[in-house]
């Protein structure tokens, strides 16, 4: 919403400066987005008189002027045809910034003749597009500031323009008068009275208006208008054109400019039909399926019954409350017009405008809510202006419907204000504030004015009082703690351990990423997602169409981008939501880590090697430990399709899958353009059981004083026997005595097969025996060892390696 200071002053009698007004507007909730003050741009220019003008010795079109200035006589080279002795104009000196040519002047030489400044044209000073010659002033003294001269002789030319961001609750502020009312309530002047003198109609309109009964209750409560005959629709007067131009509107013709004037001045959109092009009476009715309308924006709209039109015999003439039709629009030849002023239902207008994607000043205002009570007064004021500017005679007013009853009242409780806002504003001041905004009182019940559809409760009264009083004055008051003393922890165990897992991942060397929750369909499909339930109806790009089923697609895409930039070794992780469906709550938190390339840069110690699944497994286990997962878990191979079928595993507690680790499927890597090797893990944080009871007490340490004994065994087994089955079998040999069993060597591959037979490998384990009450005898150790060999042999079909 744009306005000029002088336009504002039509409605507000004030001595405040434009800066004061701008500051107050922002503070009132009418945020000033820009303030353009031409006077500030023109401050340095002064008046000067040309005393001599001679032909430039070296250029036909240039003249050399001698100019009398407040700083003595200067020589200036000038190309303007009107530059001549005796002319009083506007001087820009070296050092001055000239806005119209975006240049700071220096002392120049033009075709060999020195020039100390310039005599400016209107365009060079951004006063108008006039550039035929330099400015010639009819009055003024040499040395006088140009802005002072303008203020005295042409104040409209230095009229400041203010642009305001209007929040959706303030339709009244979409008219300049509404803005003036806020400023008056704040105390920055007084609201000037708005005289409404009805124009008596001369004779009947000769056209009927009817609202279809289906629309009277909601779509169009009130439609009014009158015919004005014998108008001349030429250009509007300068003052009106200047105002519209100043706020960015293009003057079109007197009639159109008048409707725009009322739209912006009083938030009263109007429409004029050319009577010569309207056949029959006007009916406000739902559009018929498939009807079309060529609107004023030059586009043809195909309509449906939920759209509302103003129709004549020939069909729709206007999209009600949104945009007029091209056919019945006024032109320079128009002589008889129908001037419409109606009240349209905001919801209907919003729905129609949205469906047809039409943006117009009328839609913008009607969908936020114009003042229904001003429908008829607005018609009278506009009639008056048309008669004044275009001539003609006005008929009687024709109308259907009635001003909707918006009366309502809410209790103003001054104590509640103080309690809620924490500002001490006396009751009488609160009441005065509301009255200044147009509220009326019966006892302590405040009725909002008809132009404030946003006021719908007691809380709105409080907001108005606070806004006008200025929230800038609000002083902070300490918020007491919910309980005295040391604050209690607030994070849930799940939140706490999520944080710990994130820090552990970083400690393990991974860089945390935050990638988008939506990915492309192909990537989603590769990871078990990409269905319609998780599809976005209106994605912002084809790369972001589906909610992610997994974190790895995002990390792989990040890896590919980094590889393209030359980063070969990557350790990336993300902790965030993944989506199992499209209903609220069908999401869970996962943590995925991705390792690509080498484990380390090349160094003298040979630290560099390619990452493998045991790196991913180690990191997954470290993070699971941080999450409090039990040490004893199962590992299975019921793998999702994006893992390498033989080189990945799930870490599980029975059917409860805690994590997956391993190599990614080579096809997935190829499709996602990641150069391998790439290993990864995914941890399902919520699947890791939380401790059942929370106690700070640790179990007692049971550290035996007796020496533990370690015994090593090597078994020859089939190459696909899993080490864990061997360890579990050995552990089972004597649960009391065997403290732990660990794999310490594997001998597999071709050499092993050559030694031990095709398809065989050797696994070596060490068992740690911890006696509890006395030192073990050799015989006892021997007995346990035998048992271990038996158990392992039985469980794995292997043999002790000789």
């Amino acid at each position, binding site marked *: 919403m744009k306005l000029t200071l002088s336009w504002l002053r039509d409605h507000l009698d004030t001595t405040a400066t434009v800066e004061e007004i701008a500051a107050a507007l922002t503070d009132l909730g009418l945020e000033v987005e820009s303030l353009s003050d031409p006077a500030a741009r023109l401050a340095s220019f002064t008046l000067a008189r040309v005393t001599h003008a001679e032909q430039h010795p070296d250029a036909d079109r240039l003249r050399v002027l001698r100019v009398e200035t407040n700083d003595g006589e200067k020589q200036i080279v000038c190309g303007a045809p009107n530059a001549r002795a005796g002319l009083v104009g506007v001087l820009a000196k070296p050092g001055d910034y000239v806005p119209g040519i975006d240049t700071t002047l220096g002392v120049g030489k033009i075709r060999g003749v020195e020039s100390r400044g310039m005599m400016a044209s209107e365009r060079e000073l951004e006063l108008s597009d006039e550039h035929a010659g330099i400015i010639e002033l009819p009055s003024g003294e040499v040395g006088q500031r140009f802005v002072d001269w303008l203020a005295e002789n042409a104040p409209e030319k230095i009229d400041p323009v203010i642009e305001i961001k209007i929040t959706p609750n303030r339709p009244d502020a979409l008219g300049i008068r509404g803005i003036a009312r806020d400023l008056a309530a704040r105390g920055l002047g007084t609201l000037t009275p708005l005289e409404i003198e009805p124009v008596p109609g001369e004779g009947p309109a000769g056209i009927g208006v009817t609202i279809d009964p289906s629309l009277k209750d909601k779509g169009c409560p009130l439609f009014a208008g009158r015919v004005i005959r014998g108008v001349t629709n030429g250009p509007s007067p300068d003052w009106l054109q200047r105002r519209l131009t100043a706020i960015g509107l293009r003057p079109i013709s007197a009639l159109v400019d008048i409707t725009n004037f009322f739209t912006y001045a009083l938030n009263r959109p109007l429409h004029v039909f050319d009577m010569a092009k309207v056949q029959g009476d006007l009916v406000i009715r739902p559009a018929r399926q498939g009807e079309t309308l060529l609107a004023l924006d030059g586009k043809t709209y195909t309509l449906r019954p939920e759209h509302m039109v103003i129709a004549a015999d020939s069909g729709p003439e206007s999209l009600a409350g949104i945009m007029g039709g091209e056919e019945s629009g006024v032109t320079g030849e128009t002589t008889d017009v129908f001037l419409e002023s109606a009240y349209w239902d905001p919801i209907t207008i919003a729905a129609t405008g949205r469906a047809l994607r039409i943006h117009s000043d009328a839609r913008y205002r009607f969908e936020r809510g114009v003042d229904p009570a001003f429908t008829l007064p607005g018609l009278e004021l506009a009639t008056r202006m048309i008669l004044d500017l275009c001539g003609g005679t006005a008929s009687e007013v024709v109308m259907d419907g009635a001003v909707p009853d918006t009366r309502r009242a809410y209790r103003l409780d001054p104590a509640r204000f103080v309690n809620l*806002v924490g500002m001490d504003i006396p009751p009488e001041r609160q009441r005065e504030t509301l009255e200044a905004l147009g509220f009326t009182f019966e006892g302590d019940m405040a009725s909002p004015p008809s132009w404030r559809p946003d006021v719908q409760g007691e809380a709105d009264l409080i907001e108005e009082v606070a806004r006008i009083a200025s929230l800038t004055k609000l002083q902070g008051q300490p918020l007491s703690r919910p309980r005295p003393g040391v604050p209690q922890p607030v994070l849930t165990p799940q939140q706490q351990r999520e944080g710990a897992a994130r*820090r552990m991942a970083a400690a393990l060397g991974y860089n945390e990423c935050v990638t988008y929750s939506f990915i492309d369909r192909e990537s989603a499909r590769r990871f078990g997602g990409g269905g319609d339930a998780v599809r976005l109806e209106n994605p912002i790009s084809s790369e972001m169409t589906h909610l992610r089923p997994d974190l790895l697609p995002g990390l792989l895409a990040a890896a590919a981008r980094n590889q393209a930039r030359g980063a070969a070794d990557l350790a990336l992780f993300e902790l965030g939501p993944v989506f199992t469906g499209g209903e609220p709550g069908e999401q869970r938190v996962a943590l995925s880590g991705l390792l690509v390339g080498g484990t380390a840069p090349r160094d003298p110690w040979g630290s560099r090697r390619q990452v493998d699944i045991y790196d991913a497994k180690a990191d997954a286990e470290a993070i699971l430990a941080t999450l409090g997962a039990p040490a004893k878990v199962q590992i299975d191979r019921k793998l999702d399709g994006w893992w390498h079928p033989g080189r990945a595993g799930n870490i599980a507690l029975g059917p409860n899958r805690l994590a997956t680790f391993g190599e990614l499927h080579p096809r997935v890597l190829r499709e996602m353009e990641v150069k391998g090797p790439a290993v990864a893990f995914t941890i399902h944080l919520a699947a890791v059981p939380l401790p059942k009871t929370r106690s700070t007490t640790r179990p007692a340490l049971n550290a035996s004083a007796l020496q533990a004994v370690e015994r090593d065994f090597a078994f020859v087994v089939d190459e696909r026997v899993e080490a864990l089955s061997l360890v579990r079998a050995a552990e089972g040999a004597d649960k009391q005595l065997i403290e732990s069993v660990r794999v310490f060597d594997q001998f597999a591959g071709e050499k092993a097969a050559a030694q031990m037979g095709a398809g065989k490998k050797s696994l070596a384990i060490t068992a740690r025996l911890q006696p509890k009450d006395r030192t073990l005898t050799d015989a006892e150790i021997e007995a346990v060892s035998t048992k271990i060999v038996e158990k392992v042999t039985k469980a794995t079909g292997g043999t002790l390696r000789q």
Partner: protein
Amino acid sequence: MTDLATLRTAWLDRVADAADPAALEEVRLAALGKKGEVALMMRELGRMTPEERQTRGAELNRLKDEIDAALRARRLALEDAALDARLKGEWLDVTLPARPRPRGTIHPVSQVTEEVTAIFADMGFSVAEGPQVESDWFNFDALNIPPEHPARQEHDTFFMARAEGDDRPPHVLRTHTSPVQIRAMQELGAPLRVICPGRVYRMDMDQTHTPMFHQVEGLAIGRDISMANLKWTLEEFCRAFFEVEEVELRFRASHFPFTEPSAEVDIRCDWSGGQLKIGVGESWLEILGSGMVHPKVLEAGGVDPSQWQGFAFGMGIDRIAMLKYGIPDLRAFFESDLRWLRHYGFAAGDVPSIEGGLSR
């Protein structure tokens, strides 16, 4: 009788002259070995009278001890010399690189979320979370944004696709974390203090917008919590978060459907030299929106507005991270450029805390 004094001098000289451990061992055997000179002299004691034996025995023992001590001292000296000689040859290039230890980083969004959490936790706010796919009721209606409200259009909402025949209004990707406030009220009732951090989504992508970003909202409900309490809470938050002595906030009236009165909050700052300083200067920077919870919103949360009142606020986590840490481009937050992650990320050990400070 050999003169013991002469003998002593002779042996001690030989000990001192031994050039290496082997020579020293020879001396030891020759002097104190089973067949060594001192041992042989000890044997002669048996042939002496008891008186003589007593005197002579004591003298010999003393001599033995003295030689033994000299031998030990000499051995230590020889060992030290040998060690010194060995160390002269032992040299490693200490400027060679160490064995690599990987160094990970925490993303600024996570770090700043923890910072915000630490501050509000101290003021008694817990952390509430909720679904990111939301029903339009939780995202809009419950927040006093009815279907036809113009504010709905201004939210640039992402909608979930609806299967044919499913006539429910489409779910949305939450446009703010406010629905979590409703869920928290429904679940926990009043009094209540929560912050709601998390991902939010808007259909907007340009220089300064990304279709996903992060918000933290706060909600405090009590019997007499006022807008003045809101201002103090935000002042305390900003002072702690930006780690400055003083901040100055300016409340400006504004409009949000879910709060009334509503205020945009500006913070006093200085941009001179292209660097942001909070708390000083002549500029104002809009950092958050806030207000007193609208009675209809309390009702939607199942809280009786005639008994309870409170405030709510919301701000961009990415945005305050950019302001605090001088990060220039929002889009880079989600691009996972390793150089960016390392440069703007935080060490695993940099856990923000009230007592230790939020940042290093």
